[in-house]
């Protein structure tokens, strides 16, 4: 799990941001390369569709480029970038005509999603175990989809990005207390929805 860039990387980021603010697209390209995977993963978990996630990540980075002159170096670049991308994703989810909860786009290509070590079907894993893991994945997907966009964002930033409360508050634009409260309700909802799976996790 990643927990944000170290201070050295942060100072590199700030240097790249300064150059980007001066119109240096190559510097911005470096920032994009550095964060595109994490940003895409975050958006993908929010919208659960590859193409939408790709387009929204594009929109997020493009918006960041257009807003670079507003970056005041008061937070890390990646927190600022997450704020933009999270808002883009939440806005998209709100505007979108939602499908019935729990249903997903069948076009999502699962083969393109690299599973983690914990759930990756390794060589020699039995077909039954693979099926169990696929089922677990589906159940988790369905449960996450039932969270509101705001709760989903907070859980993803905490559990996947490993952000601290204040970083999440900065990224989603709310107080630390609200972040903690949203985390509580999101976790309890997931706990309820996945109660029968806990023994298998």
């Amino acid at each position: 799990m990643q927990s944000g860039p170290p201070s050295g990387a942060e100072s590199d980021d700030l240097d790249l941001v300064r150059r980007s603010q001066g119109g240096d697209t190559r510097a911005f390209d470096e920032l994009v390369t550095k964060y595109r995977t994490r940003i895409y993963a975050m958006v993908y978990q929010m919208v659960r569709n590859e193409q939408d996630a790709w387009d929204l990540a594009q929109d997020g980075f493009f918006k960041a480029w257009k807003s670079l002159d507003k970056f005041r170096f008061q937070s890390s670049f990646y927190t600022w970038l997450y704020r933009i991308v999270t808002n883009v994703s939440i806005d998209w989810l709100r505007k979108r005509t939602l499908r019935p909860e729990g249903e997903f786009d069948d076009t999502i290509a699962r083969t393109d999603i690299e599973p983690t070590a914990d759930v990756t079907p390794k060589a020699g894993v039995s077909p039954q175990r693979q099926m169990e893991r696929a089922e677990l994945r589906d159940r988790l997907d369905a449960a996450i989809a039932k969270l509101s966009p705001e709760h989903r964002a907070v859980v993803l930033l905490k559990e996947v990005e490993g952000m601290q409360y204040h970083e999440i508050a900065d990224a989603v634009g709310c107080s630390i207390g609200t972040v903690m409260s949203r985390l509580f309700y999101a976790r309890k909802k997931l706990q309820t929805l996945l109660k029968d799976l806990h023994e298998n996790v």
Partner: protein
Amino acid sequence: MKTFEERHAAWLDGHLDETERAIFERELAGQLQLDPVAEHAELDRLKLALRGHLAQTRMPNPDFFNHRLLERIEADRHVTAPRAPAAAGWFHSIIVKLTLAGATALLLGVATYRGLISPQLEERPETAYLTQVLEAKSSTPEVTASSFNANAKEEQAAVLWLDGMSHVPESYAAADENLDPDAAP
């Protein structure tokens, strides 16, 4: 005082000190009838499952992602660059339009005054009368009058006798026939 939800999140993420943790776990066990150890373990498993499931999503076509983004940025630069003079031209045209509108309104105002309001003022019959009044008022008054005041309390009467006041000259306002109903035609 933090809310229950905030303390629950802090408890699960290990941000409570020993005392706070003990108090909160007593609260969980007492009021909510939950086993704190089991609750913590269950939510820890959930967190692990989420991390395992959600992390490491691979982005399709990452190089094309950068290429496409830089294309958009370049396209935007070309669009916004000519926009600046266009914006200045728009601003300029608005100023010109406002100036022309103001000048036209001023001309119309002057024309209206000259054509309609000013002649009416000149033709008003009160004008000659007013001139005489003003001349009379502005001339030095000729004070030759005397007054006598008598007050009879028992009769409940008061008499004010004025003598020597000049009468209004016959020529007063005679120039304006409209104002003298007794004037000869």
